[in-house]
């Protein structure tokens, strides 16, 4: 019901342009359709796509190093591994304060585990250092406390660090440390903690105030204590020693504790500098190892290609990516093996399934149904049971070998090795995946009219020609569907190869499972998984180009 005006657009009955009305109607329809699939879509997104994306993201994520040792990592930027010398004092000093905080938050061992994937020995280096960090600079702390017991007094410290009542507050520092701790522990450090560092005192003693603020936040939020009632960490006192020795202008400071500070500074003036480098080397001489430091430096950016390099048998080094030593290369070979064996399994499934599917689709319904049950029965049996059954069949003291020996075909001393190798995996997986090939083939074949073959024969074709030129081309979509199913299932299999594969019949998924559940190297597992996913997508794309995905039919 549209009205055409002379030079305007086509209008609908209510006077609006037809195009817009149409669009509106269509949009409503689309929205309705979307609303219908929304539950499924959201379900799939939340329970499937998002977790997979999150997992795959771990293959490049590497924030733990810069979150745990932010200042150390920054100081390390100026250090050059090629110099052949361990970093200078300032790095060790940052390391002390970073590591102290990390060990209070019990995050240092996690970082140790992470870096141990790259450099053997870092795990115990971090663990043991974390235990004895309190010992560093002990003498200085003792000297301070002997000089004046107020340095052990929590209330004095609190007054010193707030700068007294009504002093200008340094909220910027507080917020900075909040963020720092939140990144370190992945917990929220928001909220009032009953402490704000004073502006004047933080200008005078920058390191001390920073360390005390971190201590205050941690005490209130993580330990749920009151700041003014807790004696500060050793690291805070060491920071004070550093500040005073660096020549803080105590004389011009008038806040609370000024007299004690001046007294302490006078005492410390007569003492040598703290050498954090010597202290760390005394704890563990591995802190002087160049390889440890260059590992920390190499893995300091928040994102890394390290996991992906590992997954293709390479590693990061100060001079860029390089191949791993030959005796550690394994993943390239495993990827090749996985692809090759999956193809073998798909091939043997096609060979075995085609005649069965053909038979099923050409027999009378009643017989076909009985045969179908025989196909489905193993399909309904537990995967583990079927795999273990193959063990019993194939092992050297197993059913097949026993029969062959009994028949005299094989000598008792030279029984066939048919399991714990590639052969075992291919046999067992072909059997397990066979139904996935038979079913799509059967459903395609049962739609091919018998009359076509009969027509071909009546026109003079031999049995073979009639099959090959007429029947087979029509059954190809079934082969395609079955092959894709079987191949994609096979490429990710790991239980069966683990049980019957021995050492030569295992897949890349076995290593992925190992890194997920045993070595906890989730980053590497994610990188291996991503590569596998991409490989499957590429193969799918190639299949689409060569065969055409439209030619695949599941029924």
């Amino acid at each position, binding site marked *: 019901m549209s009205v055409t005006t002379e030079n305007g657009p086509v209008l609908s009955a209510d006077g609006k342009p037809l195009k817009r009305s149409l669009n509106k109607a269509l949009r409503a329809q689309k929205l309705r359709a979307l609303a219908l699939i929304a539950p499924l879509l959201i379900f799939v997104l939340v329970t499937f796509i998002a977790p997979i994306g999150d997992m795959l993201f771990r293959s490049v994520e590497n924030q733990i190093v810069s979150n745990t040792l932010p200042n150390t990592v920054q100081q390390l930027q100026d250090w050059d591994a090629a110099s052949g010398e361990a970093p200078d004092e300032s790095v060790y000093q940052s390391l002390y304060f970073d590591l102290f905080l990390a060990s209070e938050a019990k995050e240092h*061992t996690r970082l140790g585990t992470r870096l141990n994937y790259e450099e*053997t*020995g870092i795990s115990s280096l971090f663990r043991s250092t974390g235990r004895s960090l309190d010992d560093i600079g002990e003498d200085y702390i003792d000297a301070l406390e002997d000089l004046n017991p107020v340095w052990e007094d929590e209330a004095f410290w609190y007054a010193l660090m707030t700068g007294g009542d009504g002093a200008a507050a340094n909220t910027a520092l507080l917020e900075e440390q909040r963020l720092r701790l939140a990144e370190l522990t992945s917990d929220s450090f928001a909220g009032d903690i009953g402490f704000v560092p004073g502006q004047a005192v933080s200008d005078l003693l920058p390191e001390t105030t920073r360390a005390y603020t971190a201590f205050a936040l941690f005490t209130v939020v993580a330990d749920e204590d009151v700041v003014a009632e807790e004696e500060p960490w050793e690291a805070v006192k060491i920071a004070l020693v550093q500040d005073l020795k660096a020549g803080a202008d105590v004389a011009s400071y008038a806040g609370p504790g000024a007299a004690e500070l001046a007294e302490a500074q006078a005492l410390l003036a007569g003492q040598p500098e703290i050498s954090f480098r010597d202290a760390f080397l005394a704890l563990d001489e591995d802190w002087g190892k160049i390889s440890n430091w260059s590992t920390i430096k190499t893995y300091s950016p928040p994102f890394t290609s390290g996991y992906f390099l590992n997954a293709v048998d390479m590693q990061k080094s100060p001079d860029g990516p390089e191949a791993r030593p030959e005796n550690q290369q394994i993943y390239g070979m495993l990827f090749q093996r996985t692809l090759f064996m999956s193809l073998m399994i798909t091939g043997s499934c096609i060979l075995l399934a085609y005649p069965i599917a053909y038979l099923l689709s050409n027999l009378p319904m009643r017989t076909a149904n009985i045969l179908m049950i025989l196909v489905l029965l193993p399909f309904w049996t537990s995967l583990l049971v079927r795999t273990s059954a193959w063990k019993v069949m194939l092992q050297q003291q*197993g059913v097949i070998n026993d029969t062959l020996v009994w028949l005299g075909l094989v000598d008792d001393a030279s029984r066939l090795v048919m399991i714990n190798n590639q052969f075992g995996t291919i046999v067992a997986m072909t059997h397990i995946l066979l139904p996935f090939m038979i079913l799509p083939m059967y459903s395609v074949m049962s739609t091919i009219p018998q009359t076509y073959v009969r027509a071909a024969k009546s026109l003079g074709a031999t049995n073979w020609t009639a099959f090959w030129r007429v029947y087979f081309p029509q059954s190809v979509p079934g082969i395609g569907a079955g092959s894709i199913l079987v191949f994609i299932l096979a490429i990710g299999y790991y239980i069966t190869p683990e049980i019957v594969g021995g050492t030569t019949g295992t897949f890349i998924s076995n290593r992925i499972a190992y890194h997920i*559940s045993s070595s906890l190297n989730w980053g590497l597992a994610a990188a291996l998984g991503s590569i596998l996913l991409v490989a499957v997508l590429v193969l799918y794309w190639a299949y689409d180009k060569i065969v055409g995905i439209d030619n695949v039919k599941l029924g």
Partner: protein
Amino acid sequence: MKLTKTLLATTALTVAGAAAHAQDMADSMTMVSWGGAYQTSQINAYATPYQAMHPGLEIIWDESSAEAVAKMRAMDEAGNVTWDVVDVVAADALRLCDEGLAMEIDPDVHLAPAPDGTSAEDDFGDLLVGDCFIPQIVYSTAFGYRTDMVPAGVEAPNDICDVFDLETYPGKRSLEKRPINNMEWALLCDGVAKDDVYDVLATAEGQQQALDKLATIKDDVIWWSAGADTPQLLADGEVFMGSTYNGRLFSVIEEQNQPVAMMWDAQVFDLDGWIIPANLPEDRLARALDFIYFATDTQRLADQAKWISYGPARASSAPLVGQHADLGIDMAPHMPTDPNNAQNTFLYNYEFWADYRDDIDAKFQAWLAQ
């Protein structure tokens, strides 16, 4: 400061511990273990008596110990830890502790003293590995062999190096598909002194040396990954000798009466025990601590040995080990810690493997796949 803090925390916990009986404890508890005969022994020795003392308590068992570390990490990331008490091997406990996923334990607060008053710390002694682990049993990885496959006129194998001697003892062997233990045995049989094994294994040459030694028998090895594999392979006559946990071999020998015997030489001691997940809600934590206090006392640990041939982790439990509950045989001679069996032993080196596990495993797997 740390000391005062620990003291304060300790006092607080003692108070909490005493108050725990008065305060509400959760009335259900999820325990994680390994399944099989081992879990049965725990149900018999710990869970059933504990439930008898606390009627109305529901215990849910989860047989996930093999993947406990990965699952706890995942639960922690999801912010929903559903487990209360988790049975893990000591190496995993160390890693959970490192990851901050397990709660730190103070043995003298959380564990019962021995009946003679010895503190828990002294009673468990060196077995308290790391800060979070509560030891329960000592088990060992040892070899078993088919007695009927020993060649005629040859003495039965009694030396770890017999595993590497294919001439005198032809036949397949089953070894675990990981470097731990195998590398040590290989070096030991390649002329390295027992005290030097880990120093040698820390070097690239030493690792290669161990792999070269293993290569001499590689063609005759079936590699296992589940503890049940070797007993099965031995029972089927598929292998002549194989390594596995001693409790598994006990059940092949004594419960199933297979022609299999133990070879205890160079057995590797390892520990299994409990950890409590970090940051449990108060009522569940109170329940878990109460259970642990009960289940790791001297009598309970000794009781477990009635059902399985693993040694109790407390020194004070050893004299109380009695007879097998069903078979009625003395359990003491079947314990890995029995003096006759423990003439030459290794203790799993936790620190070493925590550091070298990834590196050596990469080499080992590459070597296996060659």
